[in-house]
């Protein structure tokens, strides 16, 4: 006699739920709960699509936290509300995996509203099943973002009041406000007709991911007889008569056009390519025999934002590095960079540098009057102050410092390089301190200069500064 198999348990569900307990065959769900129904529909879809090995099922916090008891697929348990972020990490690591984020209403529409919105907005290639039972089930029946007005829960003992609690959120409609999702449908498992429709929606949402279409979202109205304080039959009736008026079932979006371009795909660099890329251009360090006056020079460069103060420091530090000196460069940073003052500390030393902080500068390159006002009192006795005399027009107040005035901005303007006063200041310091020769500076300018077309002019400016220093000082 031929046996006809009328019903077979999906193979993507474990035969026995040993993670729950050895030999267990019952789920942990309450009688009449919708989760069991929905999870079986998803398992059947996984079977029919032949994706059991590829599937990675993300369980949320909530009643479905133990979904990994049941699914014979890859399983990851997520923190409350964050499954769409976890799914993003998984999918961007395993492009061929079929990633399912299965979430309840507290998880997705409450604590996890941020994560679902942004995963949807990025059009992550994942499938989200949103089980809406209008209540926090696992914690015992508190108000959810989707709880209807007037409904009594443990935290709305007098009924949900919109003046205090706001109104229930229609997540399918919220998703529909975004451009990126490719598929949005709301279904229900409260009656056979809607259940069949849910089955189709689940399959469609997974097919979309397999075909690489984009982000799919299926909201499923699901009964919670225990926390609704109803019989299973009454709970289904309540969905059909009450809940579906608040959350109408239906297709909200099914599009072939994702509205998104495929992410720009950059080829993978192999080890040698990566190393060459990160090492950058190999400029050999030259033993120039440069020695720092006094062993260490603590240099403060200061001026207005936009004067190239930080890059002046970078140029000086680069000269030091390429002369095999020890160097540090420490900038002013953060909001004060945007306009206002800018300063940078550079230390050049024959020995490894300890503190990179310059408390008592040996050298000050002052490109503005406020910079001179601020740093002159801090100078070490006998220190060198070079001022940009095109802008700074006062003498020093202290008599124990050496002062050199260079019309740096004027000289730069004469070369049509308004922003290159910094190069004049550095060239002047190098000429006066004789810490490096000018060839070192010429060699290092291209390493720091971002506008390469101005290279020749900058080099010419170095020569001009040299002439000026030799002529006038």
């Amino acid at each position, binding site marked *: 006699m031929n046996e006809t198999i009328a019903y077979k348990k999906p193979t993507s569900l474990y035969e026995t739920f040993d*993670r729950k307990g050895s030999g267990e065959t019952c789920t942990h769900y309450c009688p009449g709960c919708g989760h069991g129904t929905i999870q079986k529909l998803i398992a059947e879809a996984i079977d029919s699509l032949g994706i*059991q*090995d590829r599937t*990675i099922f993300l369980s949320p916090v909530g009643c479905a*936290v133990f979904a*990994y008891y049941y699914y*014979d697929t*890859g*399983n*990851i*348990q*997520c*923190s409350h509300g*964050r499954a769409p*972020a*976890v799914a*993003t*990490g*998984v*999918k*961007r*690591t*395993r492009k061929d*995996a*079929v*990633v399912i984020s299965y979430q309840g209403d507290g998880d997705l529409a409450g604590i996890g509203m*941020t*994560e679902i919105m*942004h995963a949807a907005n990025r059009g992550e290639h994942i499938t989200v099943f949103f089980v809406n039972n209008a209540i926090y089930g696992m914690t015992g029946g508190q108000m959810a973002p989707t709880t209807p007005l007037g409904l009594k829960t443990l935290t709305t003992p007098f009924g949900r009041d919109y003046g205090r609690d706001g109104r229930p959120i229609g997540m399918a409609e919220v998703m529909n406000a975004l451009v990126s999702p490719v598929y949005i449908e709301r279904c229900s498992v409260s009656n056979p007709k809607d259940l069949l429709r849910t089955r189709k929606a689940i399959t469609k949402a997974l097919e979309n991911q397999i075909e690489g279409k984009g982000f799919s979202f299926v909201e499923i109205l699901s009964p919670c007889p225990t926390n609704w304080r109803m019989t299973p039959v009454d709970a289904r009736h309540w969905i059909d008569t009450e809940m579906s008026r608040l959350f109408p079932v239906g297709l909200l979006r099914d599009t072939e056009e994702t509205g998104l371009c495929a992410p720009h795909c*950059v080829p*993978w*660099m192999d*080890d040698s*390519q*990566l*190393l060459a*890329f990160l*090492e950058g251009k*190999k*400029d*050999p*360090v030259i033993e120039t025999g440069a020695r720092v006056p006094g062993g260490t020079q603590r240099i403060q460069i200061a001026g207005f934002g936009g004067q190239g103060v930080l890059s002046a420091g*970078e140029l000086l*530090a*680069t000269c030091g*590095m390429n002369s095999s000196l020890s*160097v*540090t*460069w*420490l*900038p002013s*940073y*953060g*909001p004060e960079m945007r306009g206002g003052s800018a300063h940078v500390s550079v230390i050049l030393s024959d020995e490894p*540098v*300890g*503190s*990179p*902080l310059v*408390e008592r500068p040996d050298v000050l390159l002052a490109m503005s009057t406020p910079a001179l006002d601020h740093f002159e009192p801090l100078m070490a006795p006998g220190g060198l102050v070079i001022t940009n005399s095109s802008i700074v027009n006062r003498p020093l107040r202290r008599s124990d410092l050496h002062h050199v005035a260079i019309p740096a901005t004027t000289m730069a303007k004469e070369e049509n390089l308004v922003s290159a006063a910094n190069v004049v200041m550095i060239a002047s310091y190098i000429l006066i301190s004789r810490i490096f020769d000018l060839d070192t500076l010429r060699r290092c300018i291209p390493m720091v200069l971002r506008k390469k077309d101005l290279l020749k002019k900058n080099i010419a400016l170095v020569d001009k500064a040299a002439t000026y220093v030799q002529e006038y000082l």
Partner: protein
Amino acid sequence: MAYRLMKGNVAAVHGALLGGCTHFFGYPITPASEIAEAAANVFTASGRTFLQAESEVSVINMLYGAASAGARVMTASSGPGIALMGEGLSYLAGARLPAVVIDMQRAGPGLGNIWPEQSDYNMVVKGGGHGNYANITLVPASVQEMFDFTKHAFTLADRYRMTVFILSDAYIGQMMEPVNISGPVLHGACKDWAVRGDAATRKNLITSIHMSPSLQRKHNEELQSVYRQVASELVDFESFGTEDAQVVFVAYGIVSRICRSAVHQLREMGIKAGMLRLKTVYPFPDEEIARLVDAGKHLIAVELSNGQMANDVSLAAGNRSSVSRHLTMGGETPSVEQLVSFAVQRSAR
């Protein structure tokens, strides 16, 4: 040998790529933003994955997902952002997932300011989230170490299946120094516990939940035994002139740089000073500190906080009178002169 002049924040990203990191998830915050910016550049250009998340909460959960799937993952932030990651860090520990997180410390509490403090010590070293867990915590003091430690962190994270923190500070991140960018490029071994979306790993489960107290106890005991192994294998520090020293600074990060200058100055004055520079703070060099105290040396814990590391120094020292504290808060740093005169006072006692 070729050096590149770069910021600590940028060097960390170079180290990460050469350490085999393939996925960076980030969110901007001063003074760590350059890390995400550099990653956006070089991770993308080299075919790796960079993604700017919508929040630090999402960042740490994206790390959780990518690490679950077997990737070498990292992020970087500063105090307020690391605080937001607390729950996720606990989940990473509970699920035994490897990850690398950089904390460029700024001043707190609250919004505080963007200047350096070392006041995230307790948050990072003691876990940062709920439960009995720890993070391996490396503390670089130079741009070269930002590169080296970050590169090495991925190997440690995989070996122990833990989060490895690079606990640094605003100055180490913002300063530029020459860095030797060197290979080889490291790669992780295939992780047989990961969930990769294939037949071989279909039975795998990434979770931190163990419903029965006895199973949760067993899980906790396993974690603690890993931490004991970490403590026996990873303690690292630099002894700088400690052997003949009477006073020994104990410091890490930017403060250790200032202490180094102070030690030089004290030695020039004829005072035998030294420094125990910490390279790991979890695990903490308890034995070395006890050894120095037993040898009759006076320790000065120097720190940009209310004494968070100093508490661990005192705990290791046992004898509180042999430990002094020089504490600075708010984003200021002690001057070399201040540390010198503090040490002079202590050595005269």
